[in-house]
């Protein structure tokens, strides 16, 4: 289905924002300004954005992973609040208590990054149960890596979603690696076949093709909204960086690393396609690029300038009430 100009611009802006956010974080992390671990989403932007462009903030939910920045931005989470959170400042979305692996924004339907591999799918089916019970028409999307695909929680969630006919789209991102181990070694058989074995429709698409993701997601989400139950999408994904910022990636060949960036850059692919089809022109995309850079610069500057949480914050919000 043909996207409107506005839709194309929106998608491009989101993907570009994710890319710049991550590339900048990589630089900051190497400088030592960012605490903890950082897992970068560069290269996989088309997947988060391809699916989230179909979602609304009010009724639709996503459940994310340790590699969650891209999912957040795609779902409309505030970039400055995210950056401040990754810098663990009091102005961060979680007041600095969550950090990169726990960014959440329930008001935007973002159920949280998750530092437990396979942690989010059970939560996502819960959000889908809410949608089904309250008849909101909403859907829930857990993002699942090729490594996470093996976790028992994922299998359980797929079965539960089928049994209860929940509005879920299981979004598998197969970027070929879980940490330093290849999916070809650790993820037996086929993820698509696993999903189908539970009785849900499933399809495999190229995650560096925004339009392929967008189209597959459209169908799966429409199905879920119509009360026809869960489905799964497996997207081939291309991780530009290592597992975490700083990973030397000795397990990947130079050829693979080069090809990932040259042949599988979703932003390049997108730009080529929309300019060739004369849907957008380079100038307007360049303008977006510049705006995004400014936003990221500001976000980093504000995050760095923001106050640390205070000692009192250590003790708050363990409970709503604890008489």
């Amino acid at each position, binding site marked *: 289905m043909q996207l409107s100009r506005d839709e194309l611009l929106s998608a491009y802006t989101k993907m570009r924002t994710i890319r710049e956010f991550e590339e900048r974080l990589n630089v900051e992390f190497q400088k030592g300004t960012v605490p903890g671990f950082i897992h970068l989403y560069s290269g996989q932007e088309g997947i988060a954005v391809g699916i989230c462009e179909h979602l609304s903030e009010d009724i639709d*939910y996503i*459940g994310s992973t340790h590699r969650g920045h891209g999912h957040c931005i795609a779902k409309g989470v505030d970039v400055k609040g995210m950056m401040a*959170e990754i810098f663990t400042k009091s102005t*961060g*979305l*979680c*007041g*600095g*208590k*969550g950090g990169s692996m*726990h960014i*959440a*924004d*329930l*008001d935007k339907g973002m*159920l*949280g990054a*998750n530092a*437990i591999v396979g*942690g989010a*799918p*059970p*939560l*996502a*089916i*819960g*959000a*889908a*149960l*809410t*949608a089904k*019970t*309250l008849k909101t028409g909403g859907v*829930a999307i857990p993002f699942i890596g090729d490594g996470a695909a093996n976790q*028992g*929680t994922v299998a*359980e*969630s797929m*079965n*539960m979603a089928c*049994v*209860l006919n929940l509005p879920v789209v299981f979004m598998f991102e197969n970027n070929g690696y879980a940490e330093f181990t290849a999916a070809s070694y650790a993820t037996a058989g086929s993820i698509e076949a696993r999903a189908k074995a539970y009785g849900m429709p499933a399809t495999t698409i190229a995650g560096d093709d925004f339009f392929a993701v967008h189209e597959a997601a459209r169908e799966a989400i429409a199905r879920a909204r119509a009360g026809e139950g869960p489905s799964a999408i497996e997207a081939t994904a291309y991780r530009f960086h290592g597992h975490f910022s700083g990973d030397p990636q000795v397990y990947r060949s130079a050829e693979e690393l080069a090809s990932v960036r040259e042949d599988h850059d979703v932003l390049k692919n997108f730009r080529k396609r929309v300019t060739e089809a004369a849907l957008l022109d380079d100038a307007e995309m360049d303008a977006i690029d510049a705006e995004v850079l400014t936003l990221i610069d500001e976000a980093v500057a504000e995050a760095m300038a923001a106050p640390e949480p205070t000692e009192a914050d250590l003790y*708050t*919000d*363990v*409970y*709503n*009430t*604890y*008489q």
Partner: protein
Amino acid sequence: MPVITYREAINQAMAQEMRRDPLIVVMGEDVAGGAGGSAGGAEAAGGVMGITAGLATEFGRDRVIDTPITESAIMGMGAGAALTGLRPIAELMFADFIGVCFDQIYNQAAKFRYMFGGKAVTPLTIRTMIGAGMGAGPQHSQAIYPWLTSVPGLKVCVPSNPYDAKGLMIQAIRDDDPVIFCEHKSLLGMEGEVPEDPYTIDFGKAAITREGTDLTIVSMSWMVNFCNEAADQLASEDFSVEVVDMRTTSPLDREAILKSVRKTGRLVVVDEANPICSMASEISSIVAEHAFAALDAPIKKVTAPHTPVPASPKLEALYIPDTAKIVAAARETLEYEL
């Protein structure tokens, strides 16, 4: 006042709350039962112990949801539903099964509020069955509430009688934090007076089930009943024993414990859990830190031994801290002289 069982008290609490609040859903293995069965799919169980009996029939299967045997998916679904607007009651049939789903409870539900910077509200109630006494063997008989109690962000109920079971269950359902409600399998048939109208019992408020001045016994869940028996037995020997029933272990009513010990100067803590890092250890350590000056005797812990729960009913009876063991520890503590 109507006399009903602990099982019925919990059932009544859920039914009354479900009538009041359409956001409440119940989920778990065979909480209705019969789904897909050749007899037509009518409610067939109402829980393996009948605690959810009748709920599916009254509220329908959209609100009383039979699930596959996948505890991580059940707990996670409950947590995710709670985070997004429902008030789920999720059943973990036997507490022993926590090992296959603990992550969704302790790393997810319990931490949402804190790690999301105070923005999450997770009104999830987890019902589960604890304890020994049914000859159910090593993997179906454990009292694992110490682990639960240690988790920041979780609240833990350990009712010892039907009245408390109802009041704490209603509070658990209405509470905006994740609560684990521990039902003791040996108490399900216990009868007691329970008001028909809904009422709540505040969390973190212990009950004094026996008043006394010579010795404090602190306990929870099934064990409280043995402690009461022990107190009554010792009363006939002219010892005045106070029994404190914690009712919830998180929050824990430290004040009630300290107040009683400051009065009696002597403490026995009784806990069905394995001894190490138990609630008995916790309560003893609180007193050793905060009421030390009041103590006239060593603090005795009466717990299960550091062994699994044996299947043999004879061994299981020896495993359980019973009235005789409590009386013996109490007597020793009462008779202690520095």
